[in-house]
Structures are given as C-alpha cells and as structure tokens.
C-alpha cells in the first residue's frame, strides 16, 4: 500500500493509504478523544467526539476522524476552535445523560465542561450543576458491547432497542442464556461498567 503524507496540527504525518485520520493521528502520538472507537471493531461514527476540522484549499469541513480516510496533502486540525466548541457541547450533553461515568468525567475534566468544573472547583458532588437538566443513566450508548458481540464473537446476544433517547442496550435472553455465561468478554470492553446490570436485567426477566 502506498504511503500518503498529511498535516495534522501543523505536523507532517505519514500514513498508509486507507487509514483513517484517527489511526494516523494516534500512530503519530496525537490524541483525539473517542467514546465509540475500538481497534478491533469497524468504525461506528456515533459519538462524534473524534470530529476534526479538515482544510482543502479555501474550504474547511468538520468530519468524524474515525471514519474519514487519509488523503495526500490533507490538512487536519484536531483542536481548532469549532472542534473544541463542539466537543465541549457534546460532553455537556453526555454529562446530562450519564454524569460521573468515567470516560465522560475524564474528558470533561480535560475540556473543562461545567458539570465537571463544578465538582473540581467547588467540591460540589451534586450532579445538577450543568447546562442541562440531568436524567442520569449509566450507559453512554457507545455500542462497543453490541458491536463486539456481533463483529468479534458473532453471537448477536446484545442489541439496541428503541430509538432516540429511548434507545437502550439489552441482552436477548434466548441467545444470552446459552452464550453469555461462558463469555462475558463484553464486560471488560464496557467503558462505564454498566453492562453487568443489563445482563442481570435480562437474567431476571427471563427467570420470571
């Protein structure tokens, strides 16, 4: 495969053709935040946190770096003003959904979102201090478990149901009962630790 050269944050980066911007950047030691990316899984493009700005000639555009493949001479800015502004908003939105969840807390700290800031600056433990009203859950719907089960294990024991904010991860008891007891590999891939409770729920539902 031929090699291409692109410029990420004023730095010349070499990458293999067909690579995504995210892969090229991480190879070069440039970090781009992600929630739904995993190297073993196909790019999902759902959390949008990895969005970067690309410039071609006079025009610039925001793209998801986990999906967009590298091109020779492409100029990428991973921390430009619109990128940061958007990332902060996404984290604020996610904080309202799953406050205190580890990856959100970590990124929130890095980007200084209001909910995390309140905890850090004032020692406030209450989670009601963001820009949005909070309706807490533990799952961030990154889909890592669902995709791991489908793409790597090929069992399809986990899936999404519902749409919009009603979307949730469920184990399908018919498959889970057979396949999950000896696997549970998804537990370690879940960034929030919410998954065992989903499994317990499926177990409980099935046994009643």
């Amino acid at each position, binding site marked *: 495969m031929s090699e291409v050269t692109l410029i990420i944050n004023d730095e010349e980066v070499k990458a293999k053709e067909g690579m995504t911007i995210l892969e090229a950047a991480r190879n070069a030691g440039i970090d781009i935040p992600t929630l739904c990316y995993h190297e073993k899984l196909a790019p999902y*493009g*759902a*959390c949008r946190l990895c969005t970067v700005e690309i410039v071609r000639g006079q025009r610039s555009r925001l793209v998801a770096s986990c999906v967009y493949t590298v091109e020779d001479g492409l100029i990428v800015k991973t921390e430009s003003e619109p990128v940061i502004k*958007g990332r902060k*908003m996404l984290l604020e*939105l996610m904080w309202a959904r799953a406050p205190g969840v580890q990856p959100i807390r970590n990124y929130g700290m890095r980007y200084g979102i209001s909910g995390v800031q309140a905890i850090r600056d004032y020692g406030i433990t209450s989670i009601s201090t963001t*820009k949005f009203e909070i309706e807490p859950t533990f799952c961030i719907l990154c889909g890592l478990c669902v995709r791991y089960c489908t793409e790597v294990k090929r069992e399809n024991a986990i899936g999404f149901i519902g749409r*919009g*904010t009603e979307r949730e991860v469920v184990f399908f008891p018919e498959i889970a009962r057979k396949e999950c007891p000896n696997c549970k590999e998804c537990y370690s891939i879940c960034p929030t630790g919410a998954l065992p409770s989903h499994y317990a729920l499926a177990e409980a539902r099935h046994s009643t």
Partner: protein
Amino acid sequence: MVSLQLRNLNRLLLQSKLNREERNVSRLNSAADLERLRQEILAHRDPNKPCVTICSGTGCHAYGSEAVYEAFVKEIHRNGLREKIDIRRTGCHGFCERGTLVVIFPEEICYLRVRPKDVPEIVSATLTEKKVVDHLLYEDANGQRIVHEGEIPFYSHQSRIVFGNNRLIDPRRIDDYIALGGYNALAKALFEMTTEQVLSEVKRANLRGRGGGGFPTGIKWETTRNAPAEIKYVIVNADEGDPGAYMDRSLLEGNPHSVLEGLLIGAYAIGSHQGFVYVRQEYPLAVGNLNIALEQAREYGLLGLNILGSGFDFDVKVHRGAGAFVSGESSALMTAIEGRVGEPRPKYIRTAVSGIWQRPSNLNNVETWATVPLIINKGAEWFTSIGTERSKGTKIFSLVGKVNNTGLVEVPMGTTLREVIFNIGDGIPGGKKFKAVQTGGPSGGVIPDSLLDIPVDFDELTKVGSMMGSGGMIVMDEDTCMVDIARYFLNFLAGESCGKCLPCREGIYQMLKILNRICEGNGREGDIEFLEEISEVVRDFSLCALGQTAPNPILSTIRYFRDEYEAHIKEKRCPAGVCKALIFYYIDPQKCQACMICLRDCPAEAITGGKNLIHIIDQEKCTKCGTCLEVCPPRFGAVSKLSGVKVPEPVLQGTEAIRKRGKGK
C-alpha cells in the same frame, strides 16, 4: 329486491373482470409490438363515449370514493347505460379539499364533494339528459359556477406535467397508461438511444433530485454508472415521512407505471438489472397498486428478461418500510433493504458508489423517477424551458394547513409562494391573516409573509433558511405560535432520531426540553442564544442529514420571529394565544348577559354564576379548552383569550348581569 340488485351488481363486476381478461395478454417483443398494442387499445376506445372518472386517491378514498363508485355502477346499470358509459377509478386529482371528485368526459364536467346520494341525479341529469348539476360545481367567491375542471383556479394556475395523467388513468390498468403513450420513452431509450445518450439527455435537462437535496440526477447516475462493479442497483425512495406531505404517495398510487418507466430508463442508462422500491408500509394503496403494476408490466414483457426484445434485463423488488423517518436517508434506507435496522452509516463514501451490500446503488425519489420519461420523450430542451436558471421543470407540493384549497399542486420552479398559496390555494380561511409557510418538512424552515414573493426553487428556499425538501408546504395563519411550531417539529424529530449518534439523540432532546419550558412560561434569559449554540453543534456534528438539518425549524423561527420567543421568555406572553400555560380565558362582566351557554358547555365545570348572575371562570379549574370563547354568542362577545397580563379580579359572585336592552345597542 335488494338481494336481486346485489346479485346483479356482482354479476356486473364479474363481467367487467371477464372483459378485461378476454383480450389476449401477450408478451411484447419489440417497440412495434408496443405500438401495435397501443393502437389496438385506442381502437377499442371511443373518445366521445362518456366516461365517469372517480378520483380514488387516498384523500377521496377517505371521503368514501369507493361508495360513490359503487353507486355509479349500480345506477348506470339500473338505467341500462352499461354499454354506453365507461366508469373509471383514477389516481389522485389533487383537489383533496373537495373530494370525492368526479369528472365526466369528454366534456370534463367536474363535480366536487360528490356523495353516493348525488349519484342518481348525476346519472339522470348529466349522463342521460346532458344537463349540468349546478350544486355540485365549483363556486368561486363571487358565486360564479365553473363547469370544466381545467377552468377551476386551483387547476388553471398549475402546470401538471408529471401529475396530470393521474386523473386520466386507472392505476390498476396498464392499458390506460399505454393508451396515453406510456412506455414510449422506454422504447425510445432502448431502441433509439445508447446508454450514453440517455444519460447525457438527463444531464442536459439538469434534473435535480425531488426528494430534498436537489442533487443533479444525471451526475448521480453517472457516478453509479462509472463505479467499478458488476452488479449495480437502482432504487425508488418512497419513504415519504414528512408530516403533511403526500405527493409521492399520490404519484405512486395514481400512476405507478410512470415511476416504473423512469426507473427502467435509469437502470438502462446506469447498467443495472435489479431495482428496489422502498415504500412505506403505511401506504397500503401505494403498495397494492405498485404490485399490480409490476405484475402487469411483467406480463407484457416490460419487466423481466429481454425487455421488449431488446436484450435488456431488469426486475424490481418491493421493500416495505417499517415506519422510520430516518429510513428516508439514503444509507439508512439501504441498510434497511439489506434486512438490518435502518440506521445511517457513517461513511464518507457516496451510496452511489457503495450502497446496498457495498454495491453502487442509485437512489432517486418517486417524483424524480416519474419525471424521467417526460425528459426522454420530449427532450432536454423542452424540460429546461420550464423553471428557473438552476432549477428546471416543475415541482409537486402538498399544500396543507391553514389554506382554503388543500391539495396537491404542481407548478413550474420559480413560481412564487404567493401564487401557490393565494392563487392556487385561494388564501387563508376565515378571513385570517397569513403568517408563515413551512416548507421542506421537519428539516425545513418557516418563511414569513415578507418573503412571499420569492420564486420557489432549490436555491432560493435554501437562501432564506428553509429548503425544498420533498415538497411539503404547511400554511400557517395568525393563530399559529411559532415557538409552538418549532416545538412540534422538534418533538417529531426527537421521536424519529434513531439514537445512534450523540449530537442528534441528545441535542434534539435537550433543545426540545428548552422549547417546552419556553412554551410553559419557564423560559430563561439567554435561552434563545443557548438554542442557537446547541443548534450549531447538532448541525455540524451529527452523523446524517436528519440531525444535520434538525435545528432548522428552531433557527428559522428564531430568525423571523425572534420577538415571539422574547415575548414568551420575558413577558410570559404567547402572542398567538396558543401556549396554554401562558393564556387564560376571561368573561368581561360588563358584557356578560348571563345566558348560561358557556356555563352549561364548559366541560371542566369551571364556570360559576347562574340565571341573571354574571358568569365567572374559575382559573384553577379551567383547562383552557376554549369552548366558552367558541360558544359565547358573537353579539355578546363577552369571553376573551388573554395572554401576558394579570387575570383581572373577578366580580363578586352573585353579581347581577347588566342586560342590554334591545338589539344593536
């Protein structure tokens, strides 16, 4: 007696079925065969023979067009006119406001709002004595009656090049379509044109996608055509999901062969042998008529192997959607056809290159496909002579909302909104004032009256912050609250977001919550700016077009009606008097005549008072349904709807009403 009539009716229906099957259905093996068939059909048809056409589109169907049809069959039979008069159930005529529509040929006498009880009169007067039934005619504002369909202003201001044949053909009879020159364009493309010529004709016509984006159809075709792959697909997008929009539905229901013919021509130009129609399960008539059309086309050899003996093979599969708005998005639609949940894909590669099962897949909207045969038949020059500089041809709009003539309207691109709403739509009912028109469905925006004179085309609508979309046009009058409208559309989108990507799922939800609190009188200083800030991120960061365009209803209402947002937030006032939390009803003690009407009609029993005693609304109990305002006799006009002011102190209970003496005092 009744059973005898029923038996006769059954026999009649059976006979008409037999008649249809009598003529040999044989495969057409050449363009000459097609032409021969057309001549044969025409030879059996006398253009002067009276024909009753009954609109059987969805609107008229709901009005009971089927019962009207049966009444005609029965009545014509009873009068012994069966041999002398044809009856035809056609596709949607478009003037849905006045259904059931009946047009009698050859004179084209147009009867509106026909009910089964009117049928005997039509048969005896018009069909027997050649007299017009006056009371079923269109009547304009001056009381002038109009006999002919084409002279009714609703129709005369349109140019129905795509939609027009709907009213002439029975969608379940391929012969009707062929009689009007149907499949001529296909024969022309297959036998007289190379695939390159077909493509270049469509490109020169500058046909742009009617589904919303306005992407040049020819260029899209070319991309798929040039994509390196053995197997390619062409798809009809009939996943019309915008609230209030039904033009694709009516086209597919009323003239499925025109869509099919366009698809065949596209497939030929692109080099595809398999097509799909993605149609909503909620459109049973469209699915039904489409399946009949496919069956008949196969019988004639217009679909399948070796079409018209040309060596070109093509067939179509119908995929019924499971009811998700997002499935109209191309990559989600294709994922759904593959048999998976219809969610958009994040790829930056066009579906024209990598679509269904990663194969090049060309997706066009119903109306786009139906326009293709016209371009092939009449040429790109003819097509580009209609429309504006950058938007050619016509566009079908579904004109709905607060407008007198609800229906489907086809006009050349560049027609002004004013012409559509006031000349064709006949303005706003009840003498109310026009406020705004919402175009482009939930992803579009509102356009205020100051911009009524802009020409409607892809670029102009985008410029003013809305979009063409698939052609929904919702008219709003002065009683519409623009914050409430934004909330309505956001609520729709919140329910239809698939939930895959974060900005769309969470962003729409939070924006909806802010709109809800503004409508409930809990808006905060800075909410408008905050909405704009979230909008920007949702627009720029979302995965697919649903999220990217979701803020449009908010942004365009803020752009043109910022003052209404401010009134809600700062003054806790809803200027249009819609948001229930911000309004109250009040009975003016000076005007109340203690007539007991509102008191009796109030469903919440919130009105106290009595005979001769002034009526008072208990604001605690009031559910703000507005019944009191509706029932208060206009000559009293004692009830009013107020917003943004304090509830006036009620008079003491038991105060006697001051009765007016005599009328007009």
